[in-house]
């Protein structure tokens, strides 16, 4: 729907207003609010365009259009101006992707960011945190532009449909994150302590009011230096929290949760396992194994049973909770069971007989889970 309209716009407004450069005209089109103006010097430097000429058809004509150079007299060989128009758009977009990673581009984008041109996060408990445009791929034609919120580390569909004609590659996968590395004072820190008094989880606005109380410091000088908006929604029925034991109970609070202190982040190692759980292993492990061995309904599923045993060899990590509100007194957990369940069938085909002989070192739950997540289509990882 948008496309033909934009094209028509192109004819009408580009030709008569000759004082306006193509670039500023392009950036003023509806739906192009996220673009900043790339300087002509940047486009004229061939080094900055390395590799792009193979991606853009009618390269020469597109360059002439973007830079407002009078076309050669043999321009008649182009059947339709709209083809060059779309080539110019592609060229500009791909140059834009590179430009906004540089110093000048980041500066241009921070001005837009601070004036709120990119909008704010739709998530209620991000309390209107400003977002930046980002792509899910660095190659054009894959997905439209999205908005990245530094507070919840998530991406959202722009609220207006006029951005659905804008390619995400014109902003790229890197820009948003490099931006918050450069402007750390705009990046929320990864930890958050609820204000001691007053603010209930029902009032997201109280977190903003607390900001002035004391200057916020993140001990990691390379991390976000802004106080995060950390409330997580807690579903309630008639005022009572929905238990996670219910089938419809909360399953996703981890996605938005932050530790109260930066030290808590260090309690998880690079594999995603709790570090301090080891000390609980030895004494608890024996108990657990005994319970398993005498489990009366152990024989019903051979596969699961074998996997459980295998896991015990390396010891089930003890539940150890940092958050008082979520404290549980549940005995050690057999971890491999569900991990295997979530694995793709391929790894199951190792053969049922082989399960016991697997080296115990590979059995960690999280490691297996990681394996599973790695098999997702590599949409996010695309790089030019």
């Amino acid at each position, binding site marked *: *729907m948008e496309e033909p309209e934009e094209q028509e716009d192109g004819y009408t407004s580009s030709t008569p207003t000759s004082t306006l450069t193509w670039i500023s005209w392009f950036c003023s089109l509806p739906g192009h609010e996220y673009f900043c103006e790339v300087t002509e010097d940047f486009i004229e430097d061939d080094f900055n365009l390395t590799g792009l000429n193979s991606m853009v058809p009618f390269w020469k004509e597109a360059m002439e259009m973007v830079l407002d150079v009078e076309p050669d007299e043999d321009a008649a060989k182009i059947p339709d101006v709209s083809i060059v128009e779309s080539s110019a758009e592609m060229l500009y977009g791909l140059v834009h992707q590179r430009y906004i990673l540089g110093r000048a581009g980041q500066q241009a984008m921070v001005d837009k960011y601070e004036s709120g041109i990119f909008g704010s996060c*739709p*998530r*209620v*408990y991000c309390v209107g945190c400003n977002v930046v445009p980002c792509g*899910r791929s660095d190659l054009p034609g894959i997905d439209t532009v999205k908005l*990245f919120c530094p507070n919840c*580390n*998530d*991406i959202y*569909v722009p*609220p207006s449909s006029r951005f*659905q004609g804008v390619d995400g590659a014109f902003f790229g996968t*890197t820009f*948003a*994150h490099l931006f918050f*590395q450069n402007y750390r004072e705009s990046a929320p820190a*990864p930890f958050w302590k609820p204000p001691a008094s007053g603010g209930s989880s*029902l*009032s997201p606005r109280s977190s903003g009011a607390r900001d002035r109380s004391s200057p916020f410091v993140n001990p*990691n000088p*390379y991390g*976000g230096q802004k106080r995060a908006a950390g409330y997580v*929604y807690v579903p*309630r*029925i008639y005022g009572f929290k*929905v238990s*996670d*034991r*219910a*089938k*419809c109970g*909360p*399953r*996703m*609070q*981890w996605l*938005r*949760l*932050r530790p109260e202190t930066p030290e*808590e*982040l260090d*309690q998880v190692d690079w594999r*995603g*396992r*709790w570090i301090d759980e080891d000390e609980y292993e030895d004494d608890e492990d024996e108990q657990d194994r005994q319970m398993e061995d005498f489990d009366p309904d152990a024989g019903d599923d051979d596969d699961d049973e074998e996997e459980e045993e295998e896991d015990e060899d390396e010891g089930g990590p003890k*539940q150890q909770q940092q958050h008082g509100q979520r404290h549980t007194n*549940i005995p050690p*957990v*057999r*971890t491999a*069971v*569900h991990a295997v369940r*979530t694995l793709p069938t391929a790894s199951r085909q190792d053969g049922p007989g082989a399960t016991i002989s697997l080296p115990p070192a590979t059995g960690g739950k*999280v490691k297996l*889970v990681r394996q*599973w997540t790695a098999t997702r289509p590599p949409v*996010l*990882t695309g*790089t030019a």
Partner: protein
Amino acid sequence: MLRRAVEDISTGSDSDYSRSWISWFLSSKGNEYFCEVDEDFILDRFNLTGLNNEVANYAQALDLITDQLDDEVQDELRGSLDVQARLLYGLIHARWIVTARGLAKMVEKYKRGDFGRCPRVLCQSQSLLPVGLIDIPYEKSVKLYCGRCEDLYSPKSSRHGSIDGAYFGTTFPHLLYLVYPTLIPPKTGPPLDGPSNSTSGEGGKRRRGREEMPDVSGTGGESVGEGISTASVALKAERYRPRIYGFQLHESAKLQRWQEAIRDRQVAKLEELETRGS
């Protein structure tokens, strides 16, 4: 606007009862989130217990809602009465949508996507449900709850952003998923709520690529049905990983590892409970 004003007059005054106040209210712009409250629910005084303290001109507002308002009411009162009638209807609505019939009506609206779609990219246009942050009127506007990421979002349109959250209440979406566990969205894959011959161009475009996939609604392993465990569904949830030139960032990766360790711990706890035969 003009037409609305004309209709407003016609409902209250003459013998023109072609449209009731409720159907006028539901069809006016910005009220798309509301469903129709059955008249016998409103007429049962038990259901309205306590509302007379919340609403000024309670009796007349109730008469207006049920189209029994006297013609003699002065014009100056009529304006404020309309505000009170909206408040009263909203508060009744909050009670109605947590009844069996009210839930069923809201499920229809949910399946049609009347409350909009989740703006989170990885939720793949999951249908949303309205929710209040507090059950007291005039405090907080309505928010939208996504059953997939289990988070709250502000409505896109300011028309909806100004609706009082108390007209939907804090309980509604969670009670709906409690009563209809088959509607609990899967954490991955396309949403269950119908094939959604989507209106929004973008949503339609994204779904087009999936048309070859069989419709999973109802049966497939993705659906959270009666007998299926939801203990480990969180492991299937996709999440966005910030990357610079393909490399994850130290601090956000660390936070994400911590969050996933929390997730794994919850999953382990729930599975433990399940295997103990809960």
